[in-house]
C-alpha cells in the first residue's frame, strides 16, 4: 500500500518543511476567513493527501490521494468567494487537474495492465513489453506537468493561486507543484527507466520555454499573487531544465553528470518550496493588511511591516538567484551541469543546450527586474493608497510562520552539503552513481562542479565575506560619525507625493515594450487635456492589459470548438422528439447492415453500398425536406 524509500521520504520532508511554518501562518490567518470549518477540513485533508501521494505504494492509492489532493485544493480555492473570477479560477483549475488526471489514469492503466493495486516496481516489466513507451512518456508529461504548471499547461496557475487564501497559495505553489514533480520523477525512474535521448530534450525544451514564459508574464502582472504564481511557472521551468539535463546525461551514459543535474533539480525543488512559500506568506500578510492584491496600491509597507518586508526581501534575493542565497546555488548547479555538455557529440543537443543556457540566463535577469519591481513598488517609497497607509504588522502566529519559513530558506543556504548528501543518497537508491564525494572533496566549504573544467562555489565563505565586508563598511561609517539630516526627496521643486512615484506599470514599461510581440498588450490611455493641449492635462489614466497568448490560442479556442460541436449535436439530437420511429428504423438498419458487412464477409463494395443507403435513408426519413 505505502512505500517509504528515500525518494518518498525526501518529499515527505519537503512537505513537512513546507507545511509546518504554514500551519502557524494559517492559524494566524484564520481570523480572516469566514468559513472556518470548511477551510480547516479541506486544509488538513489537503496536507494529508499530499503526504499520501508521495508515500503511495501502488497506483490505486496514488490516484486516490492525487484526486483527493485536487479535490481539496479546489475546495480551498473556493474558501473565500468574493467575485465571479474566483469561481472561474476554481473551475479552470479543477478542469485542468482533471485533464492531467486523464493522462495519469491512462498511464497507470497501461502500465499495470489494469491491476491498479500493483506495486510500482512491478510495473516496469509490463511497460517493457509495451510497444510505444514514448506514448507513456508523453502521458506522464501531460499528466504531471500540467499539474506542475509547465508551459503550455500553465494557464491555470495565475488564476488559481491568487484566488486561494494566502496560506493555501503558499502550499499550492510551494508544495503541491512539487508533489506533481515527485510523481514525474517517481515514474520516470521506477517505471520508464531507460530513457531515449529525445525525452530529455523534450523536458529541456519545455523547461526552457516555461522559465522564459513564466518570468515574462510575471513582469507584466500587477496582482502580487498572480506575479508569484507566474514565477512558479518560471521556477518549475528551471527545475525541468535540470531534470532534462539529468535525463540527457543519463541517456548518454554520463552517470556523474546525470546525478549532478538531478541533484540540482531536486535542490531547486526544495529552494523553490522555501522561498515561494515565504513570498506567498509575505504577499498574504500584505493582502491581509491592505485588502488588495494590486501592487499599485501598496507602497511604503516596509515602515509599517518591517518583519514581512525583511523576510520578503530575503526570499526575493533567493528567488532572483543572487549569491549567496540558496536559489543561486541551485541555479549555479544547473548552469554547471550544462557546462558538462561540452563533451557531447550530438549536434542537436549542442544547439538545444545553448538555447537552454540562454533561456536560463535571460530568466535570471528578468527575475531580478521583476523582484525589484515587486519589492520596490510594494514595500518602498510612499504609500500608494489609504489601505497601505493603515497597514500594520500582522499577528504573532503569522509572523512566526514567516520567520520559520525564513529559517528554512536560511537552512537551505547554510546546510547545502547536508541537503545535497541527502539527494545523493536518494539518487543512489534510484540506481545512479554517487557524486557527493566529487562535489565536496575537501569538506563542506567548497562545492565543486562535476563537469569537466567545472567551477567551484563556496557558499559559506561567500556569505561570510559579504557579511564581513558589509559590516566593516557599516562599522567604518559609524566610526566616521557622519552628521545626518532628514529632508524631503527632491522632486524638481514640486512636492513628492505618492503620485509622483514610479508605478509598477511604469517600472515594467521598457521591458513590456521590448517584448510587445509576445504580450500583444492592450493599452488604455485617457487624459483630461487642458485647452486641447497635447502636453497639458489635469488628470491622466493609463492602463495596460497583456493578452494571454497561450490562453487564447489553446484554451479559449478549444472551448469554442466544444461549443460549436455541442450546438450541432444538440440540434441533431432534437430530431428524436418528432422522428423517433425513424431514428430507431435507421439505427436498426445501420446495426444490422454493419453486422452483416463487418462480421460476416467484409467487402468494400458492400461497405460503400451501406454508406450510400444509410445516407439516403437518414436524409429521407429523418432530416426530411426543407420547408
Amino acid at each position, binding site marked *: 500500500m505505502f512505500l517509504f524509500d528515500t525518494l518518498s521520504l525526501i518529499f515527505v520532508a519537503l512537505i513537512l518543511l513546507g507545511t509546518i511554518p504554514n500551519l502557524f501562518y494559517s492559524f494566524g490567518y484564520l481570523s480572516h476567513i469566514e468559513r472556518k470549518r470548511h477551510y480547516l477540513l479541506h486544509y488538513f485533508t489537503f496536507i494529508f493527501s499530499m503526504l499520501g501521494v508521495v508515500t503511495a505504494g501502488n497506483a*490505486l492509492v496514488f*490516484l*486516490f490521494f492525487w*484526486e*483527493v489532493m485536487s*479535490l481539496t485544493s479546489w475546495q480551498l480555492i*473556493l474558501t473565500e*468567494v468574493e467575485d*465571479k473570477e*474566483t*469561481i472561474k479560477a*476554481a*473551475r479552470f483549475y*479543477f*478542469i485542468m487537474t*482533471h*485533464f492531467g488526471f*486523464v493522462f495519469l*489514469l*491512462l498511464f497507470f*492503466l*497501461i502500465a*499495470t*495492465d*489494469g*491491476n*491498479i493495486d500493483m506495486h510500482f516496481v512491478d510495473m516496469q516489466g509490463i511497460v517493457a513489453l*509495451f*510497444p*510505444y513507451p514514448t*506514448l507513456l512518456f508523453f502521458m506522464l508529461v501531460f499528466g504531471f506537468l500540467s499539474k506542475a504548471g509547465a508551459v503550455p499547461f500553465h494557464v491555470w496557475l495565475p488564476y488559481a493561486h491568487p484566488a486561494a487564501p494566502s496560506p493555501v497559495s503558499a502550499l499550492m505553489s510551494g508544495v503541491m507543484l512539487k508533489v506533481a514533480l515527485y510523481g514525474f520523477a517517481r515514474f520516470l525512474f521506477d517505471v520508464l527507466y531507460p530513457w531515449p535521448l529525445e525525452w530529455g530534450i523534450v523536458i529541456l525544451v519545455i523547461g526552457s520555454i516555461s522559465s522564459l514564459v513564466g518570468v515574462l508574464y510575471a513582469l507584466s502582472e500587477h496582482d502580487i499573487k498572480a506575479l508569484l504564481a507566474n514565477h512558479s511557472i518560471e521556477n518549475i521551468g528551471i527545475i525541468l531544465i535540470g531534470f532534462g539535463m539529468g535525463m540527457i546525461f543519463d541517456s548518454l551514459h554520463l552517470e556523474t553528470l546525470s546525478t549532478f543535474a538531478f541533484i540540482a533539480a531536486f535542490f531547486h525543488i526544495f529552494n523553490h518550496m522555501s522561498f515561494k512559500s515565504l513570498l506567498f506568506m509575505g504577499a498574504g500578510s500584505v493582502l491581509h493588511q491592505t485588502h488588495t492584491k494590486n501592487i499599485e496600491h501598496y507602497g511604503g509597507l516596509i515602515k509599517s511591516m518591517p518583519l514581512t518586508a525583511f523576510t520578503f526581501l530575503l526570499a526575493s534575493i533567493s528567488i532572483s538567484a543572487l549569491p549567496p542565497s540558496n536559489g543561486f546555488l541551485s541555479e549555479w548547479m544547473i548552469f554547471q551541469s550544462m557546462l558538462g555538455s561540452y563533451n557531447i557529440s550530438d549536434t542537436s543537443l549542442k544547439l538545444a543546450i545553448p538555447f537552454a543556457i540562454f533561456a536560463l540566463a535571460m530568466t535570471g535577469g528578468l527575475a531580478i527586474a521583476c523582484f525589484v519591481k515587486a519589492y520596490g513598488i510594494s514595500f518602498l517609497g510612499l504609500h500608494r493608497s489609504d489601505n497601505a497607509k493603515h497597514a500594520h504588522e500582522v499577528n504573532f502566529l503569522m509572523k512566526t510562520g514567516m520567520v520559520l519559513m525564513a529559517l528554512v530558506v536560511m537552512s537551505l543556504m547554510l546546510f547545502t552539503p547536508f541537503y545535497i548528501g541527502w539527494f545523493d543518497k536518494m539518487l543512489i537508491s534510484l540506481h545512479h552513481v554517487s557524486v557527493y564525494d566529487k562535489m565536496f572533496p575537501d569538506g563542506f566549504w567548497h562545492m565543486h562542479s562535476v563537469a569537466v573544467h567545472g567551477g567551484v562555489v563556496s557558499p559559506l565563505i561567500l556569505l561570510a565575506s559579504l557579511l564581513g565586508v558589509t559590516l566593516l563598511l557599516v562599522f567604518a561609517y559609524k566610526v566616521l560619525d557622519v552628521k545626518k539630516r532628514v529632508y524631503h526627496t527632491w522632486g524638481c521643486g514640486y512636492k513628492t507625493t505618492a503620485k509622483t512615484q514610479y508605478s509598477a506599470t511604469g517600472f515594467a514599461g521598457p521591458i513590456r515594450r521590448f517584448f510587445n510581440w509576445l504580450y500583444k498588450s492592450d493599452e488604455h490611455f485617457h487624459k483630461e487635456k487642458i485647452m486641447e493641449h497635447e502636453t497639458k492635462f489635469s488628470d491622466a489614466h493609463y492602463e495596460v492589459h497583456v493578452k494571454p497568448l497561450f490562453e487564447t490560442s489553446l484554451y479559449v479556442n478549444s472551448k469554442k470548438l*466544444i*461549443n460549436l*460541436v*455541442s*450546438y450541432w*449535436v*444538440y440540434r441533431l*439530437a*432534437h430530431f*428524436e*422528439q418528432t422522428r*423517433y*420511429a425513424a*431514428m*430507431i428504423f*435507421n*439505427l*436498426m438498419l445501420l*446495426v*444490422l447492415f454493419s*453486422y452483416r458487412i*463487418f*462480421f*460476416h464477409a467484409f467487402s468494400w463494395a458492400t461497405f460503400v453500398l451501406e454508406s450510400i443507403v444509410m445516407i439516403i435513408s437518414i436524409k429521407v426519413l429523418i432530416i426530411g425536406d426543407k420547408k
Partner: protein
Amino acid sequence: MIELLLLPALIIFGLSFVKSKKVHKLLAFASFLILLPTIALFELPKPYHLLGDYLVADTLNVYILFVSSIVGIGVALALLTLNKHVRVSRKAYRRFYRFFAIFWIGLIFSILSNNMGIYWIGLELATLSTVYMIKTNHSNAAHKEAWNYMIVGAIAISLILFGIILIYASAKPILGEDAMNFNLLLAHAKEIKSPFLFEIGFAIVSVGMFVKMGFFPMNLWLANIERASFYPVAALFSGILESAVIVGFFRFSKIAMEVNYDHLFTFVFIYAILTIFIVAFLIFRTKDFMRLFSLSGVEHMALIALFWVSGGTFAALLHFGAHAFLKPALFLSTGVLESQGKYKIAGALRGYTGKKGTLFWFLVSLFLLAVISLPPSPMFFSELYGFGAMIDTAKSSHHLLAMLGAIFLLLVLLSIIFYKFIDVYQSMKYEGKEYQKKVYASELIALMIFALGLVGLMLPSTLTYLKGI
C-alpha cells in the same frame, strides 16, 4: 420464497384501493417491506431456484435486487413529502402506489428470471406500469411524454422480444424448448450452429435495450420524460428500471461473449463511445438539473455496459451500485432544489440553514461530486477498474493504438461532463441569491439511506462479494 418476495407488492397493491386519508403514510411504510425478503434472499444458498428453472437467484441478481429495493425504499420515503413541493392529488398518490406495486412485481420477475421470456415479460410489465406513473403529474408535458414513453418503450421492448426470439431460434436446434434458459444457453453457447443468427438476435436485443436506456441516438427521450414527470418517478426510472434493463444486458452479453467476443466488444464499444460522445455534448448544453442528471445516467449506463463487455465485471457492478444509489438521490434532491425557484441552477444550494439544511446541502454536494467519480466515491474505483479492464482488452487486440485512442477520446468526453458538473456545482453553491429554503426530514432520511448505501458499497465485505460474482 417467491410468495414472500411478491407479498409486499401485493400488500401495497391492496392498500392502494383504500380511500383513507392516512393511507399514503401507510403505503410508504408498506413499501419498506420490500427490503426484508431481499435480505432473506441473501442468506439462501446460491444459486437458489425460486420457481423451477424460471426464476433463479444467484449472486448477481440478488445484489441487483437488493440495491433496487434500497432505492425503492428511499423513493418511497421521499414520496411522503411530495405534496410539499408539487401539487399532487390524493388519488394520484394511490394510483402511483398501485402501479408501483405492479412495477415491483415486474421487476422481481425480470431481475430474478433465468429465462429470456420471463425476463421480457417482467420488463414489459415494469415498463407499462411506469407509463402510468409519469401521468401522475397532470401537466400537458407529462401527458405528451407518457405517450412518447409508451410508444418508444413499446418499440424498444418489442425489439428486445424480437431479438430474444431470434436467439431462441438460433439455439433451438440444440436445446429445444430450453433454449430460453440463460444458464443453459450460456453453457452451450459455443455449440450454436448459426452464430450469425444469434448475433443478429443479440444485436436487435441490444438495440432495444440501448434505446430503452437512452443510448445513441435516443438520448433525450428519457431526459424529457424525467423532466416532465414528478421527481420520484425519475428516481425510480434511473435507479431501478434501468437496473432491470442492464441486468438483461449483462446476461445476454455474457452469452454473446461466448459466441464471438470480438464482435460483441466492437459493437458495444463503438456504440457506447457514440453514445457518450453525444451525451457529453448534450450535457454541456443542459440548463436544468433533471436533464443533466438523466443524461449523466445515460452516460453511466453506457460506461457500465462498456466495463461489463471489457471483462470488468467487478467494475461494472460497483459502478452500477454507485449509480443506482447516486442517481435517485440526485433526482430526489432535485425535487427539493426545484421546489422553490424552478430551473434556477445559480444559488440552488444556498439558503439551506439549520442542521437539516446544512446536512442537506452537504449531502447534495457529496452526491454531485461523487457522480463525477471524485474520490472517495465508489465510482472513482469502479472507473479505475473499468478502464483498466478496457485497457487490458485493448492490449490483447490487434488495434492497440486505435483502441487507446478511443479510450482517450472517451476520457476526454468524460472530462467535458466533469467540467459541466463542476460548473453546475460551483454555480449552485457560490452564485445567485441566497434566501431561506426548507427541507423535510423524510427527504433527508432518504438521502441518508442512499449515502449509507454508497458507504456500504465501499465496505470490504461488499467488495469481496462483488469480486466473487
